[in-house]
């Protein structure tokens, strides 16, 4: 049953610049309903932050968007792709346009940084020319400020460096949409600040639209053009940081009074 208090995005906004449209999304795990009725729009060029408590279903939401988790019900439309109805080939096409930065970076342990970045180029774009691979990899690493780490293994990198390399590996395919899962979790404030700057740089340089999942409010304030709060399986409120901060909702207010 849908919650009558849930927010549905403003239909009057320009439909043409909506790159992600989610309607009435539901997902349960056994008896536990994680997403009850999620409605969300992401506009072109926008950085949208999704905040919420741990276990609120934020990661489940973006995993549903790339087909890693199958939703029970609802509509997910990304760049014109109706995600739940895609076949394997179409899903692969979509995934080439959507970058996913994982919470733990998910770098391939058995490969060096260079091989991690070359992997999607060889596999997806069929680039095997050593000169072109070198140019692309070096360019991607320079963009995240880690050109010197090219021959290191993931185990030799710090948490912040891993996050940057993970983002570089995603950006190397030049996606139109970026999904960041807790990009600053487990990082010190200085490294978190660097990751925030990188997210903004990616938005500007690569002209991406992004969804950033976080419970780090200081990060949300810096990187978010708009913020939505996911509570009890639905979007409770959306707005700018200042609008959100002014909320009197007893469940939401503590997030902003840090």
């Amino acid at each position: 049953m849908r919650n009558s208090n849930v927010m549905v995005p403003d239909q009057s906004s320009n439909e043409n610049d909506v790159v992600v449209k989610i309607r009435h999304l539901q997902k349960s795990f056994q008896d536990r309903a994680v997403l009850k009725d999620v409605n969300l729009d992401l506009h072109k060029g926008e950085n949208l932050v999704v905040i919420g408590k741990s276990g609120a279903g934020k990661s489940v939401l973006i995993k549903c968007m790339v087909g890693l988790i199958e939703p029970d019900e609802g509509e997910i439309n990304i760049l014109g792709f109706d995600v739940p109805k895609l076949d394997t080939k179409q899903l692969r096409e979509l995934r080439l346009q959507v970058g996913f930065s994982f919470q733990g970076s998910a770098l391939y342990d058995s490969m060096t940084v260079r091989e991690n970045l070359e992997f999607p180029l060889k596999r997806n774009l069929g680039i095997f020319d050593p000169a072109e691979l070198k140019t692309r990899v070096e360019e991607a690493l320079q963009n995240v400020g880690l050109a010197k780490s090219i021959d290191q293994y993931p185990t030799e990198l710090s948490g912040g460096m891993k996050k940057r390399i993970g983002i570089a590996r995603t950006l190397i395919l030049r996606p139109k949409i970026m999904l960041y899962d807790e990009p600053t979790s487990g990082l010190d404030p200085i490294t978190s600040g660097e990751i925030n700057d990188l997210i903004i740089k990616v938005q500007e340089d690569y002209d991406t639209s992004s969804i950033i999942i976080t419970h780090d409010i200081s990060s949300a304030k810096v990187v978010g053009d708009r913020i939505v709060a996911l509570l009890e399986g639905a979007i409770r409120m959306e707005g700018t940081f200042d609008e959100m901060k002014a909320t009197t909702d007893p469940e939401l207010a503590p997030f902003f009074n840090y």
Partner: protein
Amino acid sequence: MKKLLLQTAEISKFTGKALKQFVQPPFEVKEILRQCYIVGYRSLFLIGFTCFIAGVVFTRQSRPSLASFGAESWLPSMVSQAVVRALGPLITALICAGKLGSYISAELGSMRVSEQIDAMEVSGVRPFAYLVSTRVIATTIMLPVLVVYADAVALFGSFLTVNSINNSSFQLFIIDALSSITYLDIFSSIIKAILFGFAIGLIGSYNGYYASGGTMGVGKAANTAVVISMLSIFIIELIVLQFVTLLRQG
């Protein structure tokens, strides 16, 4: 019961998917070769060492019994039959179940819990073909090679033991040993090795690929893979033995 049936269906689906990938391009040749190197070359010392000792021990233990009724000259043929028919394939497979089963499931399990498999999937790579099929193919190809190597090392260990007692020549030992081996023995040994390799690769991959529950889940997956692989090896041994016995009688 329902859970068992569901799991059986899941494993069958997984097996079918792995078999399908064997013949479906693109073939991950480079990764298959890398896995063959890990599975084969890196197991040589352990298997060689174990089988050498097995050859020595088996020969020393058997010799007094044969000597007691004057059949000491049968020692090479008896050892070679035991090694080729059962000891070589079984010891190799059990070592590989422990070494490779745990390696494959722990590696894939860690990749699963650290979202590396998800990362492959969202970047448009087919993780099943790249991670599972390559490992299953590598174990299926390399186990027969390792079994032949194990047989040779065990027979060499046996020869050294025989030679240390009665100075028999290597040539004579080999002629005696090979004269009692039939094509059926070699064929059944290779078939067993292929089945053992396939089972070890598949069980290790299945447990690792679907591991969950963090590092504890990875440990559990590795443990389960080793136990089930070892049980499967004995079941396969028994089934192949039945077929071979039927063929011998026929």
